[in-house]
Structures are given as C-alpha cells and as structure tokens.
C-alpha cells in the first residue's frame, strides 16, 4: 500500500504519463523556434498552419473521405473475415482446402494490390475500398480461424450435451474466440490505415495522403508537417478508440482468466 489517496496516485500517474510527451514537445518547440531551415519550420508555424489548413474546408474535403473509406472497408473486412474465418476454423475440410491459398495471400503485401486493382477496376473509390479491405481482411480471417479452432472441446461437448440450439452453440463458439478476433482486428486496423494513406498517395484526388503529398510537392512545408501530425494523431486516436471497445467487449475474459489490466 502506498501513501496518499487515490487522487494523489491518479495525479502521479497522470504526471508520469504526460511528463515525457510534454517535455519532448517543449523541446521541439524551443529548439525549432529560431529555425531558418525551410524543411524544419518552427513548431509554432506548423501549429498555425494546422489551424489554417485542417480547421477549414479541407477537413470536409479530405479528412472525411479518408475516414469514410477506412470505416467502410474495415467494417466490410470485419464481417467477411469473421464469417469466413469461422467457417474455416470450424470445418476441417474447409481448412484443408484453403490453407495453402491463405498462406499465399497472408504474405502478399497489400500495397502490391494497388497497381493490380488500378488496372482491373480503375482509379475510382472502388479500388481504394477494395485494397484497404484486402489489407485488413487476412489478419482478421486468420485470427478468427485460429481462435475458433482453439475453442475448448469440453465446452462444445457440454453445449451439445445440454442440447443447446445450434445457433446458440455457434454464438458461444464465436464468443469464446473473441479475444483472438480482437487481436486480429487490432493488427488489421494498423494495416488499413497504412494502406489508406498509400492508396491516396498513389491514386487520388482527395484524402489525407493525397493532400500531404500535394503540400510536399508544392513545397508548402509547414502545411505538410501539419498533415503528417494529423495522420499520426489519427493513427493514435483510432488505436485508443479500439482499445476502449476491446476493453469493454472483453471484460468477461479478463475476469475469467484473472488477468489484471496492465499498469
């Protein structure tokens, strides 16, 4: 037991968590304040550019399409990945039939599909949607299959012995696999953000990746930096959001296995 109430401990924790980031930002601010290097503008100028660029019409024109594509593709990959992964994990014949094929597509890097889809589908939104979805699909699918496969036999037999309806049994199996499904979904989130930005860098007329590349090509350096910061912050925010959802959804699992939250 440490001295001090929960409030003091919370403050200490916040101090520990915020101390280093604050110090680093302050260091960047001070060190770059007098910078005359055009590639490394002062942080103050970048922050000004941030407000000018992203808090105006650009947000609706570029950030919203990016997020829309990301959300739609990621959502579709989740549905397809969980359904197909469930089938593959549940039925050994399906697993045997697909395993060499899956082994191939798992290691084929998603960005390589961009030129392929560019030729096959064209330069529209569909190509970007498909390529983001493909990047996200494999980790979700494979983790779901592994998770479903690893469900405790005894639990399944108990459910069968109690003559639970088939649908309930499927639901229970899926629920038992959720920790692994979430692990795949987290991996997929990071990949889909990367593929989103790359696809917009290569072929787009809007979106975050496109705009940042435009700024860089027209030597609008502070604006470019502000875009880079925005993409970084977006990656961070989505990861945190995911963590929140995961913690809620897997509360039963943590209790079940007795695992405490990491401090």
């Amino acid at each position, binding site marked *: 037991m440490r001295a001090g109430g929960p409030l003091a401990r919370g403050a200490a924790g916040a101090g*520990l*968590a*915020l*101390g*280093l*980031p604050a110090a*680093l930002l302050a260091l960047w601010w001070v060190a770059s304040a007098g910078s005359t290097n055009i*590639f490394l503008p002062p942080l103050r100028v970048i922050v000004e550019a941030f407000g000018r660029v992203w808090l105006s019409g650009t947000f609706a024109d570029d950030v919203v399409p990016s997020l829309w594509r990301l959300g739609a593709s990621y959502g579709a990959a989740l549905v397809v990945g969980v359904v197909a992964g469930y089938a593959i994990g549940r039925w050994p*014949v399906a697993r*045997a*039939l*697909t*395993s*060499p*094929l899956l*082994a*191939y*597509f*798992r*290691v*084929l*890097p*998603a*960005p*390589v*599909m*961009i*030129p*392929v889809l*560019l*030729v*096959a589908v064209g330069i529209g939104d569909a190509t970007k949607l498909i390529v983001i979805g493909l990047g996200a699909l494999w980790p979700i699918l494979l983790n779901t299959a592994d998770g479903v496969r690893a469900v405790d036999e005894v639990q399944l037999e108990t459910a069968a012995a109690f003559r639970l309806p088939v649908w309930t049994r499927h639901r229970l199996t899926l629920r038992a696999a959720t920790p692994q499904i979430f692990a795949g979904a987290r991996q997929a989130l*990071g990949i889909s*953000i*990367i593929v989103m*930005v*790359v696809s917009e*860098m*290569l072929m787009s007329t809007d979106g975050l990746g496109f705009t*940042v*590349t435009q*700024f*860089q090509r027209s030597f609008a*350096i502070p604006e*470019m*930096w502000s*875009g*880079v910061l925005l*993409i*970084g912050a977006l*990656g*961070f925010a*989505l*990861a945190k959001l995911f963590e929140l959802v995961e913690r809620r959804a897997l509360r039963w699992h943590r209790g079940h296995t007795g695992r405490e939250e990491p401090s």
Partner: protein
Amino acid sequence: MSRYRHGLGLAGLLGAAVAYELVVRALFSPLHVPPLTAIAPEAVRLLGEARFWTATGRTLLAAVVGLAIALAAGVVLGFAIGSVPGLLRVTSSTLDFLRPVPSIVLIPVLILVLDVKEITVLLVAVSCFWIVLFQVLYGVREVDQVAVDTARSFRLGRLARIVHVTWPTVLPYLGTALRLIVSVALALALTGGLVMGTAGLGEMIWSSQESGEVTGMYALVLLTGGIGVAVDLLARLAERRLLHWHVATRREVAA
C-alpha cells in the same frame, strides 16, 4: 491423414486457379485482367531474366538492412528500458503514442532531405523497430523472479544475469517478433518502390503498370507472393533454430 490434407490443399489451389480462369475469361478483358494461362508463362519467362533478380535483390537488401537496424535498436532499447526500474513507467505513454503512428508519414518529410533508397530502409527499420521493441518489453516483463534471485544468490553480476536469465526468457518473444517483421519488412520495401520509385520490385511493378505491360505486372505480383512465402518459411526455420532448446519447439518435434 496428412497426405489427405495436402491433397485437399492442392485441390483448393487448383480449384481457385480454375475459378479465376473461368471468371476472368467470362467477365474481363485480357487488357485489364489477364487469365492465369497468360500470367504463368510470363512469370516463368521473368524468372529467367536478370533484371527480375536484380530488382528482387535490391528489394530484399533494403528489407534485410532495415530489419537488422530494427533488431539491433529494438533489442538494445528494449533491454535498457526493461531493466531500469521506473524507466518503463516514464516512457510507456510516449511509446504508446508513437507506435500507432503509421511509418509512411515519414515519406513526405524525409523525401526532402534523404535519397529514396535511405528512406526505404528507414521505413522498414521504423516499422519493424516497434514490433521488436514491444516484444522485448513483454519478454523482459516475464522474467522469472525466482530465477533472478537464484542467479543473484550465486553472485552472478548484472551482465551475467542478463546473459543467463533475461536473454533466454526474451528469446522466444524475439522469435515471434522475427516471424512478424519479415513480412512487414518485405511489404514496406515494396511500398517504397511503389510510392517513391526506389529501384527494386515495387518500382518494377509500378512502371509496368504505367507502361501498360499488364500481363508482366500480374506475373510480377504473382512472383512477389512467392517471394513472400519463401521469406516467411525462412523466418520460421530461423525461429525454430533459435529456439531449438525451447519447450514448445521440442514438443512440436516429439509430436
């Protein structure tokens, strides 16, 4: 049983190839999606060409150099952060913030100051570094306190404890990291070629797309997947060699 399974796998591959062939011939123009019967001979022809192997060599070199940097930096920093008490608490929020930042945001920043080859290596290194670092940190956290105390009572010094106690505990986590980072490294080495035109497979794929050699591009993508499979296999072999003494590997062999 195993032969039966392999047979089914082969059937699955063949089925997918036939399905692709039929769908493509029925629905697509060969100018957009060539059939497999055109892609496969092209792929075989590419395998005999020097420029394919030069490009592959360049891409793999960028991936390997980036990997080596990531491994070295990740292991050193991971051990440093993990073995100094308190340091993890101070740095964890910063690490958590930086990790999800997609490494490709570096491209526009660095392209103004470095050449594309260096940026590609750096992209690989940064992406793999986070995976290595966090695996090492997990590993260091799992070190058995009893083993540490035992080593201490045998009067093992700090360095000897790291070599004989911490390192063997972390090694399985590094094995996992190795398996994860090889495909990440390959993906980013290729992305560098696609986005910035760094000489290598990615650039070759992109330029054949731009010059309209559609069949050649499909063949290159097909071969890229093959390289991915080979690299993945190598990583698994390396992991098994590295961990031949480990319980999980020994059980696998016995079974």
